[in-house]
C-alpha cells in the first residue's frame, strides 16, 4: 500500500468522467489507453517496490503488468483507432443523453459507488479506502457508457471501462489473481474487443453493434423502442 495507489485510483475515476463527457471518439480511445496504463501500474503500486526483491512473485507481477500494459494500453486502443478510421465515424453524434447530463449522471454513479464502498461494505484492512469505490465507480460508468452509446465504438469503450472496473475490484479484494485467471481474463477482453472492432470496421456510416446484431438477431416483432 503506497500513496501511489490512491493517486492511480483517483486518476482512473477522473478518466471515467472524462470519457463520459467527451464526444470525440479519438479522445475517448486515448483516455481508455491511459486508463489501461494506470491499471498496469496498479499492481506495482499496491505491492510496492519490495515485491521485486521477493523471488517467487516477481515473475507473476512482471508478466501481469506486461500483459496488461500491452493489451490495454497498446493493442486494444490501436485496434479501436483503426476501426474508427475504417468506419469513418469520428464523433458521438446525437447521443441519447446529452453530454452534460451524462457527466451529471456519471458523477452521480461515482457518488453512489463511494457511498456503497465506504458506508455499506465493511472496511477491509490493508486495502486502500479508495479501492472498492473506484472499482465500483468504473464498473457503473462503464455500464452506463455501453448503455447510452449510440455508436458501436462507444459501446466497446464502455465495455472496456466496465472490464477495468472489475479488474480494480478484483485487484483490491484479492490482492492478486492467480496468473492463469488474470491472463485468461485479459485474453477474453482482447478477443471480445477485436471482434467488436471488426464489426465496427465492417459497418458503414454510423454503424453500430446494435444494428449489426439486428440483422441476425432480430426481435420477433417490429422493435417497439426508439432504436
Amino acid at each position, binding site marked *: 500500500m503506497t500513496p501511489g495507489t490512491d493517486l492511480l485510483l483517483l486518476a482512473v475515476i477522473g478518466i471515467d468522467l472524462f470519457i463520459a463527457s467527451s464526444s470525440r471518439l479519438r479522445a475517448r480511445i486515448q483516455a481508455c489507453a491511459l486508463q489501461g496504463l494506470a491499471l498496469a501500474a496498479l499492481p506495482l503500486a499496491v505491492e510496492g517496490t519490495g515485491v521485486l526483491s521477493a523471488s517467487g512473485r516477481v515473475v507473476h507481477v512482471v508478466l501481469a503488468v506486461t500483459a496488461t500494459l500491452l493489451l490495454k494500453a497498446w493493442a486494444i486502443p490501436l485496434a479501436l483507432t483503426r476501426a474508427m478510421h475504417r468506419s469513418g465515424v469520428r464523433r458521438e453524434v446525437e447521443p441519447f443523453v446529452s453530454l452534460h447530463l451524462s457527466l451529471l449522471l456519471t458523477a452521480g454513479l461515482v457518488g453512489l459507488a463511494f457511498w456503497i464502498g465506504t458506508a455499506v461494505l465493511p472496511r477491509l484492512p490493508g486495502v486502500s479506502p479508495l479501492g472498492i469505490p473506484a472499482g465500483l465507480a468504473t464498473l457503473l460508468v462503464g455500464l452506463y457508457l455501453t448503455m447510452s452509446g449510440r455508436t458501436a465504438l462507444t459501446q466497446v469503450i464502455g465495455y472496456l471501462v466496465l472490464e477495468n472496473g472489475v479488474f480494480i475490484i478484483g485487484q483490491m479484494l484479492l490482492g492478486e489473481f492467480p496468473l492463469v485467471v488474470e491472463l485468461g481474463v485479459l485474453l477474453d477482453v482482447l478477443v471480445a474487443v477485436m471482434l467488436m472492432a471488426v464489426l465496427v470496421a465492417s459497418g458503414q456510416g454510423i454503424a453500430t453493434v446494435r444494428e449489426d446484431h439486428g440483422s441476425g438477431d432480430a*426481435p420477433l416483432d417490429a422493435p417497439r*423502442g426508439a432504436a
Partner: protein
Amino acid sequence: MTAVMWANLAALVLLLTAFLAPLALWRRPGAARLAGALLTLAGCAVGVAASVTALVLGQGGTITSLWRTPLGPLTLALDGLSAFFLMCVHLVGGLGALFGFGYVARLRGHLGSPAVAAWVPLLIATMAVVVLAGDVLTFLLAWELMTLASFFLVTAEGQASGRPGLVYLLASQLGVAALFVLFLILAAHGDGTGFDAIRAASAPGAATAAACFVLAVIGFGTKAGFWPLHVWLPEAHPAAPSHVSAIMSGVMIKMGIYGLLRVLTFLGTPPAWWGLFLLGIGAVSGVGGVLHALAQHDLKRLLAYHSVENLGIIALGLGLGLLGMSQGNGPVAALGFAGALLHVLNHGLFKGLLFQGAGAVFAATGTRDFDELGGLARRMPVTGTSFLAGSAAITGLPPFNGFVSEFLIFLGAFAGATTLPPSLRLWALAVLPILALIGGLAAACFVKAFGITFLGEPRSTRAAQARESGRAMPVAMAVGALACLGIGLWPLPIVHLATRATDVLGVSGTLPPQALAALALVPWIAAALIGSILALALIRRALLAGRDVRRTATWGCGYEAPTPRMQYTAPSFADPVLTPAHFLLDAHHDDVAAQGPFPVRAVHRHHLGDRAADRFWRPLVRATIRLFERIARLERGDVPSYLVYVLLTLVALLLWQGGIP
C-alpha cells in the same frame, strides 16, 4: 404380488397395445380400427373383472417398477377406493369405446382423422393408472398424460374445436398447478413421495391440512367441474366426439373426485367446515348446473351442464360424509360417502349413455340443435328408449340407478339432521330441499331434452330422414341402459361394493341397518312401480279393445293442419322454470312481439350467459393478458434497453444491500 394386480397390469398392457396397434396397422385403416376396438374392449373387460374381484374379495396389492426415478420407483397400488373407481373407468370406458367403434365409422368424413380414435384406449389406460397410482410422481405423470390424451380427443374435430380445446387445456393446467403445490406440501410433510409414506406420517397441523384441502378442492375441482371452475365443461364436451364426451363426462371428471378422496385419506380427521365447504360447492354446482342446462339449445351443452349438476350432487354427498367424519358420526359419514361413490358410478353409466344418445342423434341428423330435431323416437327406437332410460336415471327416478345414489344421500341428510350436533343439523337439513330442487329441475330439463328431441314431429328434413345406424352404437346404448336399470332394480350388491371403497376413507364401513333395510325394499318398490305401469297398460288395452284407434300427431290445440313449427320449442319448455330464477341468472331475451290481429313475424329468442365465465373468468383472463402485455413492453429488442435494466437492477441491488428499502 397378487393375482388381481397381474390382471390389472394385463388390462393396462391390452389398452396400451390397443393404442399402439392401429399405428402399426396404418396401411389398413379398417383392420386398425377393428384391432384397436377389440383390444380396448378386451382390456376393459379384464379391468372390470379384476376390479370387481378385488372389491368382492377385498384384495389389494402393489407393483413397484424396477426403474427408479430420483424420487423413488413408480408404484401402482390397489385398495378398495382405487378398485371402485377402476371399475367405473373400465365399465364406462369400455362402453364408450364400443360406441366409438360405430360412431367413428359413421362420421369418418367429419372427424379430422379416424386415427384419433387411437387416443381413446390411452385415455382409459391413463385414467386407470391415475386411480392405481401409489406415489405422487406416478399420479401426476398419469394425470398429465390423461389431460393430454383427452385434449387430443377434444380437438379431434379440427379447426372448430381449437378454442374449446385451448380452454380445456388452460383449465387443466390451472388445476394441475394447484395439484403440484398440494403434492409438494404433502411430500415435504410425509418425508417421501409414496402415498404410504405420506399416510404413515402423522396428520399435518390444522393450517397445513386446511391449505391442502383448499388446494385439493381447487385442483381436483377444476377437473371435476365444481362451480365456478366448471367453465371448460360446456366448451369441451360439445366440441369432442360423442363417445369421448361420454368417457370424459362419465369417468374422467370423476378423477377429480377420486383425487379429492385420496388426498382426504392423508389429512386426518377433517374439521366440520370442510364438510360445509363442500356442501356449499355442491349446492351451487347442483342448482347452477341444472338451471344453466335448462336454457341450452345444444343437446351436448345441456348434458355438459348436467355434469356440473351431478358433480354437485356428488359434492353434497362428500360434504355430508365429511360432516359425519368430523363429528365421529359413522352412519352419516358412511351414507354420505357411499351415496357419493355410488353416484360416481351411476352418473358415469347414465351420462355416458346420454352422451352416446346425443352422438347417435348427431350421427343420424348431423345436428345437435333442438330447433332442428324432433320425432326421433319412432325413427331411432333403440336410441330413443335408451335416452329415455338415461333421462329417468339422471333425474333420480326409480327404478333406475340415479334414484339409488340420491336416495343414499337423502338418507345421509336425514340421519345428519337427526343425529349430528345441533349446530350442524340445520346444514344437513338444508341438503334435503336442495337435492329435491335439483331433482325437480333436472326432471323439467329432461322433459325438455327428451321431448324436443324424440317426441313430436321432426323440425327439419334431416331429422325426418334419421335412422338407427350400425350395430355397435345401439348395442353400447342398450347395455348402458340395462346397467342403469339393473342397478336401480337390485342395488344392494353395488352398494356393498361402494362400502368397500369407503373403508379406505377411515369410515366404519357398514351402513346403518335402517338404510340397508330401506335399500332392500327398493327392488319391491321398483317391482310395484313396473307392475302398476304394466297394469295400466293392460287396462288401456282392455278399454280400447274393439274400438277404432287412429294414430296421429300429438294434439296441438285442435288446428286442422298442424305443422312442425306449431310445436313447443326448447325455450318454451325452459322459460317458465327459469323466469322465477332470473335474479340468479344472466338471461338475455331477444323478442319481437307479435303485433296486430294478423301478425307477420314474432320472435322469441332466449340465451343464458354463464355468470362464472362472463363475470369472473373473462375479466380475470383479460386482466392477466393486459398485465402480460405490459410486461412484454419491457422487451424492446435493442441492447441498450437491456443494459438499462441491468444497470437499474445492479443499482437497486446495491441500494438494497445498503439497507435502503
